[in-house]
């Protein structure tokens, strides 16, 4: 285990163990964010590679104002969003404004026991994938960082370059959106 400062110092010395620690600690995290946003494993790996290479370039100037994990996530987030913009330049990535009204829940059946009772692991996973694919990227990023990576609202805001209140609103929208999507597909079994 390394403290943040030790890790930066040993990485600057090009210590192989420090590299192994860095890779083992952060590669999967960065990958999950990129894969979630891009929905493409190869592109997500490209983002991991790009983010780590960028960090190596910056090591000597890395000031430790941000944690390494926050820094890597931020670079990966920006790289993934760039790739999305290239992929579909005409598409608006920001079509849902944060101050729009939050849509009222439509499906009010209680489907909580459906996944465990009626679906296999693979079927549950397919439902979750289908639901999250439909989520706007800027909400998806916040949802992944907060719920799947377990980061704080502050870290999530730092990574995505938004305010804390915007991060909260986006998380709220993402949760309700995903709830509604899962309800659509699962409530019919309830």
């Amino acid at each position, binding site marked *: 285990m390394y403290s943040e400062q030790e890790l930066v110092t040993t990485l600057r010395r*090009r210590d192989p163990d420090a*590299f192994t620690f860095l890779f083992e600690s952060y590669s999967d995290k960065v990958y999950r964010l990129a894969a979630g946003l891009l929905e493409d494993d190869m592109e997500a790996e490209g983002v991991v590679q790009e983010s780590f290479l960028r960090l190596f370039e910056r090591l000597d100037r890395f000031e430790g104002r941000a944690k390494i994990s926050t820094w890597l996530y931020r670079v990966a987030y920006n790289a993934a969003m760039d790739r999305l913009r290239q992929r579909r330049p005409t598409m608006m990535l920001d079509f849902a404004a944060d101050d729009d009204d939050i849509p009222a829940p439509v499906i009010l*059946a209680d*489907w909580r026991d459906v996944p465990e009772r009626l679906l296999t692991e693979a079927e549950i996973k397919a439902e*979750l994938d289908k639901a999250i694919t439909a989520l706007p990227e800027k909400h998806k990023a916040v949802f*992944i960082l907060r719920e*799947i990576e377990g980061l704080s609202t502050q870290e999530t805001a730092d990574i995505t370059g938004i305010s804390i209140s915007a991060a909260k609103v986006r998380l709220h929208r993402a949760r309700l959106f*995903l709830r509604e999507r899962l309800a659509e597909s699962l409530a019919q079994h309830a």
Partner: protein
Amino acid sequence: MTCEELLQYLSDYIDQNLDEELTAAAQEHLATCHNCRVVLDTTQQTISLFREQGKRTIPTLRRQRLFDQLQDAFLQAEADC
């Protein structure tokens, strides 16, 4: 508290970010409003399903290749100095 207000505070309620007064008002509403109770319960279920399923990792073979490539780049930078 109305259903609209409950919906607006739902995430803060789940994350226990509401002050005592609002928490009490939300609980009072949830005790009598079936629809909001279902929305709360299914939202929490949604979150926990994603938390359980979300921890994917880079596929093993490709992870090893990525490790090797990045390690080379990392150690190479030293040779360049």
